[in-house]
C-alpha cells in the first residue's frame, strides 16, 4: 500500500499533456528500435502487438521476454518522461488552460490521435483492433442513451446497426463501385471519401426511421414489454434481409470500398461522444432522466414524456446506424447473421460492464471487452469462461457497471497539476 501511495504522490504533478509526451516517447522507441533491437535482444520473434498478451498466453516461455519488453518500451519511458518533463508540460498545460475549453480539448485530442496513429501504424492488426474498438464505443455510447439515460431495456440495437450497415453499403456500392448487383458506379470513385459522411448520415437516418417501428407501438410499454418488442424488431430486420435476394440475402453483401480509415472512424467517434454528451446534459437529457425515475411525476411537471422518449430512442438508433455503416466499411462485408442475438449480447455486455448513465463508463466497457476479447484469443474456449466470469463479478460487486452515474470533468482533467499545497486534493 505504501508504495502505491507514494507512487501516486510522485506522479500527481504530471498533467495529461505530460502523460501524452511519455507515451509518445514510448511509441517512438517502439517505432525506431522495437523490432531491430529491443525485441531482438529479448528473443521475441516480433514486436508484441497487444503488449505481449497474445504471445504470453501462447508461449509461456516468452513471458519474461514480453514483460521485459513492456518494461523497457512502455513502463519505464512513460513514467520517466512524464515525471521528468513535468516542469515543461505543466506550464504548457497552464497555457492551454487559458484557451477556451473546447479548443484545449481539441488540441489534446489531436495529440492523442497522433500517438494512437503512430502506435497502431506499427502493425495492421493493431489498426483493425483499434478501428473495431472505436466502432464499439459508438455503439455502446448510443445504447447507453436508451438503456442508461432513458432507463429502458432495448434489444433492437443490432437491428438498427443492420439498417445503417445495409443502407450505407447499398449507397456506396451503387455510387462508387462497379458492382454486380447495382451496375457501374454512378459517381466517380474519387468522390467517395468526400461523400462518405453523407452516406453514413443516410444510414443513421434509416436506422432512426426504423426505430419508429419500435417506438410507436411501445409508447405505453415499459421494461419487459419494450424488451420483447425491440427483440422482435431485431429478428424482423434480420429475417427481412435474409429474404431479400436483391441485396444478397443470407449470402451477405461484400465489396464495399474501403472508405473508413482510422482517422475517419476516430473523428466520427469523437463527434458521437461530444454530441451525445451534449444531448444528455441538455434540458432534454435532464427530462429523459426524470422520465426514467418517475414517468407520472415527470408528466405532471410539464415534461412531454412521449416526445422525450421518442427523441431519445431515435437519437440512440441514429448513432447505432452510423456505427453499422462504419462497421460495414471496415470489414467490407456484411451478412444478416452478424446482426443477431450474439451481437446483442456483446453490446449489452459492453454497456453493463462499463456502466449505465455514463459516457466514460461506456468507453471503458467497450474498450475493455474488445481488448479482453483480443488478448485472450489464444485461450480459445476458456476465453468464453473468463469473460463471462468477469462480467458476473462486476454485476455482483458493482451492479450498475464499473463507472456509472458519473462523468469526468474535462476541465479538471486537462488542467495543469500544481503542487499539493496549492491545489488541494489531487485526482
Amino acid at each position: 500500500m505504501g508504495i502505491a501511495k507514494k507512487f501516486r504522490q510522485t506522479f500527481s504533478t504530471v498533467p495529461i499533456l505530460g502523460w501524452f509526451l511519455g507515451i509518445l516517447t514510448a511509441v517512438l522507441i517502439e517505432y525506431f528500435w522495437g523490432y531491430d533491437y529491443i525485441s531482438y535482444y529479448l528473443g521475441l520473434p516480433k514486436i508484441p502487438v497487444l503488449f505481449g498478451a497474445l504471445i504470453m498466453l501462447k508461449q509461456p516461455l516468452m513471458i519474461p521476454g514480453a514483460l521485459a519488453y513492456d518494461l523497457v518500451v512502455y513502463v519505464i519511458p512513460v513514467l520517466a518522461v512524464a515525471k521528468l518533463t513535468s516542469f515543461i508540460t505543466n506550464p504548457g498545460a497552464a497555457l492551454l488552460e487559458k484557451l477556451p475549453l473546447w479548443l484545449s480539448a481539441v488540441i489534446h485530442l489531436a495529440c492523442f490521435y497522433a500517438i494512437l496513429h503512430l502506435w497502431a501504424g506499427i502493425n495492421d492488426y493493431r489498426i483493425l483492433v483499434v478501428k473495431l474498438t472505436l466502432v464499439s464505443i459508438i455503439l455502446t455510447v448510443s445504447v447507453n442513451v436508451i438503456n442508461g439515460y432513458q432507463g429502458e431495456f432495448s434489444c433492437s440495437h443490432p437491428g438498427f446497426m443492420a439498417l445503417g450497415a445495409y443502407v450505407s453499403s447499398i449507397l456506396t456500392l451503387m455510387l462508387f463501385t462497379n458492382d454486380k448487383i447495382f451496375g457501374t458506379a454512378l459517381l466517380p470513385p474519387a468522390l467517395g471519401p468526400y461523400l462518405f459522411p453523407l452516406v453514413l448520415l443516410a444510414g443513421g437516418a434509416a436506422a432512426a426511421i426504423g426505430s419508429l417501428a419500435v417506438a410507436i407501438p411501445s409508447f405505453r410499454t415499459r421494461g419487459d414489454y419494450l424488451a420483447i418488442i425491440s427483440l422482435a424488431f431485431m429478428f424482423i430486420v434480420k429475417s427481412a434481409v435474409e429474404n431479400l435476394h436483391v441485396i444478397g440475402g443470407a449470402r451477405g453483401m461484400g465489396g464495399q470500398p474501403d472508405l473508413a480509415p482510422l482517422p475517419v472512424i476516430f473523428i466520427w467517434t469523437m463527434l458521437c461522444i461530444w454530441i451525445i454528451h451534449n444531448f444528455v446534459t441538455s434540458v432534454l437529457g435532464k427530462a429523459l432522466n426524470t422520465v426514467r425515475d418517475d414517468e407520472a411525476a415527470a408528466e405532471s411537471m410539464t415534461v412531454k414524456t412521449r416526445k422525450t422518449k421518442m427523441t431519445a430512442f431515435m437519437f440512440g438508433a441514429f448513432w447505432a446506424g452510423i456505427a453499422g455503416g462504419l462497421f460495414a466499411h471496415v470489414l467490407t462485408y456484411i451478412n444478416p447473421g452478424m446482426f443477431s442475438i450474439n451481437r446483442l449480447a456483446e453490446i449489452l455486455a459492453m454497456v453493463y460492464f462499463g456502466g449505465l448513465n455514463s459516457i466514460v463508463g461506456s468507453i471503458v466497457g467497450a474498450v475493455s471487452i474488445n481488448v479482453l476479447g483480443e488478448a485472450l484469443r489464444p485461450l480459445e474456449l476458456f476465453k468464453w469462461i473468463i469473460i463471462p466470469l468477469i462480467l458476473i463479478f462486476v454485476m455482483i460487486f458493482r451492479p450498475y457497471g464499473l463507472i456509472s452515474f458519473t462523468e469526468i470533468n474535462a476541465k479538471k482533467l486537462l488542467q495543469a497539476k500544481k503542487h499539493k499545497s496549492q491545489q488541494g486534493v489531487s485526482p
Partner: protein
Amino acid sequence: MRKIAVLTVVAFSVAMLFSSLALGARKTIIKIGINAPLTGDIPKVGEGTKYAAQMWLEDIEKAGGLEVGGKKYDVELVIEDNESKAESAVKANTKMISQDDVLAIIGPQSSKQAVPAGEVANKYKTVMISPWSTNPNTTLDRPYVFRGCFLDPFQGPVVANFITEEFGFTKAAVLYDVASDYPKGLAEVFKDAWEAKHGAGSVVAYESFTTKDTDFSSQLTKIVKSGAQVLFTPQYYNEVPLIVSQAKDLGWTGPIVGSDSWGSAETVELCGEDCYGLFFSSHYAAAGAKGATKAFIDRYEKTYGYIPDDVAALTWDALRLAQQAIQDAGKITGRIEKDREAVRDALAQIKDFDGITGKMTFTQEGDPIKCAVIVKINNQGEYEFYGSSCP
C-alpha cells in the same frame, strides 16, 4: 521512489536473464496459419481442421522439417480461433499475416467467414486456401485465394442427376434453411437443375425454415402431402437427424438425399438407424477407401478415436497443396512478401494434384476441378462409396 527504482531494476534484470536464453532465436521458419471455428456454432468442424493440421505437422516434424530447394526449414502452425464469426475471422487473418508472418493460410471453413477473410488475404497478397467454402464469391476476382472443394453449381446437378438415374423419380421436394447461405444456395441450384431436367413445377414442394429451428412438422406435412417422391435437404449434422426422424413420423416413405454438409461423423451418431440407407453427395467416402485415403482415415481414427469427416480430409489436402506449392516455389528467401508471391504462382501452376479427396487442378479463379462422390449410409452406419461424378 527509491523502492520503485530498486524494484524496477530487479524485475528488469531477472527478465533479461531469462529472455537471454532465447537469444538469437530469430531464424527463418515456415509458418502456416490455420483459421478455424474452434468455438461458436460448429466446433466439430474446427476440431477436425485442427486435428488434420496437427497430423500434417507431425509428418513434417518426423521428416526433420520441410525441404525447400535442398534446405530443411522448421515448420510452425499458427492456429487461430475465428469463433465462427466473420469479424473474428478477419481479425485472425490480419493478425496471422501482419504479426505472425505466415506464408500461407488454411481456412476459414464456412463461406460466411471465408468471403470476408479472403478479402484480407488478397489485400495483403498472402495465399489462402479455404478447404470447405462453396460460395463462388470466396475466390472470385481474388488471385491469392483458392479453395479445396467443388462448388455448389457443380454439386446441385450431380445430386439431381443421381436421383434421376438411380430412382427414376420426376417429382422432388426441397427443405432448406433460408437464413444460412450454404443450404440456401445449394437448394436454389438443385431446384434449377431439377426443373431443367423434368420441367417447370417438378419441384413440388420448396419449403424453408430458419437456423436453430427444431420443429419442421408443418413444412414436412406439406412435403408429404405434395406427392413428392424424394426429399432433398442440404442441411448440417445438427438438423439432419431431426428432419429425418420427423419426416418418418409424419409418414414419409421415400428416400431423403443430402449434400456434403451431411458428411460429419456426428450425422449418423445423432440420427441412428433412421439414416441408414440414405444417400448424399460428398467429397470422399470413408468406408471402403483405398490407398492414401485409407491410410489417412486409419491414422486419424487411431489418434483421435473417430472416423474423420470431409472437413478433416479437405483440410489435409489443402495443407498438402500448400506444402507442394512451397516446395515448388523452389526457395525461401526470408523476405516474406516475395516468398508469398512465389507460393501463389506455384500453387496456381499445380496440375493433377493427387489428394485424398480426388485429383485436383485449379481453374483461373482458384477453384479446383474435381469429382464428387455419392455416398450411401450403410447398415453399419458407415459412409460407403456408391458412385462418383466427374466434370
